[in-house]
């Protein structure tokens, strides 16, 4: 498979990511001059350094990690199901997480669930919800032979949980509802360093696993029969892909809420830039691409020159959808 051009594109992606990261750190409601940014990064003194280290760096790093994780999860799901419509949320993890967060935030008045009031409670609820759906999906993935069946189960879980969430929303109080709606809109600004360490280590393991799965992913593209004939252990690969995606999507949803679109769109955008089906190129490119897209969206969400911050989910879809439509029209087709 052609190495040189793809290698260059991946290199350019990395460069763009570096620049975007720096720009993202430089821009915010308080304007900090360029020299102060550099100084603030190295000397922990002054208000600028405080803003950088307490707010901007954690947020930029969260963008980087969440974007990379969601996009990679999307790629893994599109390959596993050989379906361009698949995204990281097809397994129903996001819905499971939203269900538990909804129960926590909306039903807490009746059940005093919010006894342990901490920044971690939402993250813990989301993780529990995601993990519960994850266990169901994993046991089904080991049992059913057919990937499409797995896809349907994921969609059904999503449908069931979101209807339950609707019922909760219908019966809840206005201010609780607002808290929940804000969580549903996704945010990368709420993570502190200790949360970031959890996020980084779990996503790190997920990304390493994704790279280790490159051969299996390529094999699965040919269909199960051919993959088996080429000596690929399909059952093990399927479980590993689901575990990897589940881990990454679960932890991102726990800390940032259900961030939509990135996971579905980035693999397509990357394939339109680098027309290849080889995961040796796709996996690293999609990781970088996801981080780039989320950093860029976050930059736009801050509305440069203003103190307002728009919800991240609104921006990702608002900016991303026209780009994908334009690129699909240009390329005239889409493939997995």
């Amino acid at each position: 498979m052609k190495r040189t051009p793809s290698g260059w594109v991946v290199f350019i992606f990395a460069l763009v990511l570096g620049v975007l990261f720096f720009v993202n750190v430089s821009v915010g409601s308080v304007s900090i001059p360029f020299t102060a940014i550099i100084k603030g990064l190295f000397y922990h003194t002054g208000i600028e350094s405080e803003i950088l280290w307490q707010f901007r760096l954690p947020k930029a790093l969260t963008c980087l990690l969440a974007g990379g994780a969601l996009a990679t999860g999307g790629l893994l799901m599109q390959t596993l199901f050989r379906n361009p419509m698949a995204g990281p949320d097809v397994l129903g993890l996001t819905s499971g997480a939203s269900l538990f967060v909804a129960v926590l935030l909306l039903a807490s008045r009746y059940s005093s669930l919010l006894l342990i009031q901490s920044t971690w409670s939402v993250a813990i609820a989301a993780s529990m919800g995601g993990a519960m759906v994850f266990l169901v999906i994993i046991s089904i993935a080991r049992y059913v032979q057919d990937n499409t069946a797995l896809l349907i189960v994921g969609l059904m879980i999503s449908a069931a949980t979101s209807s339950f969430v609707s019922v909760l929303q219908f019966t809840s109080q206005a201010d609780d509802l607002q808290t929940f709606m804000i969580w549903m809109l996704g945010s990368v600004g709420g993570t502190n360093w200790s949360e970031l360490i959890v996020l980084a280590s779990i996503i790190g393991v997920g990304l390493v696993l994704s790279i280790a799965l490159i051969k299996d992913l390529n094999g699965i593209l040919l269909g199960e029969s051919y993959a088996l004939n080429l000596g690929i252990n399909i059952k093990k690969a399927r479980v590993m892909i689901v575990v990897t995606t589940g881990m990454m999507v679960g932890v991102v949803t726990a800390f940032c809420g259900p961030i939509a679109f990135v996971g579905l769109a980035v693999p397509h955008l990357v394939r339109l830039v680098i027309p290849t089906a080889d995961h040796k190129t796709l996996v690293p490119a999609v990781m970088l691409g996801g981080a780039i897209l989320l950093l860029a969206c976050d930059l736009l969400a801050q509305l440069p020159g203003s103190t307002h911050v728009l919800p991240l989910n609104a921006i990702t879809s608002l900016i991303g959808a026209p780009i994908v439509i334009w690129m699909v029209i240009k390329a005239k087709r889409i493939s997995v």
Partner: protein
Amino acid sequence: MFDSIDIALQTSNLQVGFKTRLQNRVLFEPISINLTSGELVCFMGSNGIGKTTLLKTLAGIQAPISGTIKRHQSVAIVLTDKISAGLMTVRDLVTYGRYPYLNWWLTLHDRDRQVIDDAIRQVHLEPIADKLLNQLSDGQLQMTMIAKALAQDANILLLDEPTAHLDLNNRVEIMNLLRKLAQAGKTILVATHELDLALQTADKIWLATPEQTIVTGIPEDLVLNGTFDRVFQLKGFDLKTGKIQHTPYRNIGIQLTGNGPEFLWTKNALERNGFEVVTDATLKVNVSSIEGSVTFQIETNNRHEQFFSIEELLLKLSMPSA
């Protein structure tokens, strides 16, 4: 067994089919069958009888219900499954053949590149090696799948209907390729519906009967002892002459003279149109070819008429006065 060197694959009491919770659906009576090295075997039988399932079981993709398969050589399979990934070149797909030998990072060594190049060359794919799969014709795609199987370095090739949906030229090309590969030492089992191609290329036929057994034999033997007729219940096709049967519904006998392909095709046209070609009749047609131009002469008693195409000839013969 002493002669096991020649046996590429051997099954004993093999039962194939689908396992369900309630009962197993077994497709054939227990199969004890051999594939001999370097032979081209065509596996025939009506649709839905279980050819694909048997191939998949022989390749180890599907678990047998009972019995054993001894594979003395490695197996590569070419199925009818569509490859959905379009952003892949011919060379990329052939590279997949090396996967059993590659590490997780898919590092290609010189030997792998050599094998890939050889496979592409053997199937004559060099001109389209860098084309994307979604730009290929069905025939080219099938050739690419065969090249992938060759790159797998397996000595046994199992192919499921490799000539389905292809035109005659492509069908013949693929069967010739398989023929050549068998001569070069590969053991090849092809599931196919192409009776005519199978009869002309196969060393051996496996024939799935409606009684769910598999009859094996040399193609000519199976033709002459009527096994094909019995299994396929051929309707209007005379296997022993290799032709479609025509009824001479016009009750007109024609004495046809001439030679070469011109004679054969004229005979074909006459019989297709309900005339009977006989050795002696008052209506005589003579076909002659002089320097590439063909003339057809009708002789009745003392009249002579000349035509320059079979169409004109048939038109004249069909008129009541003739």
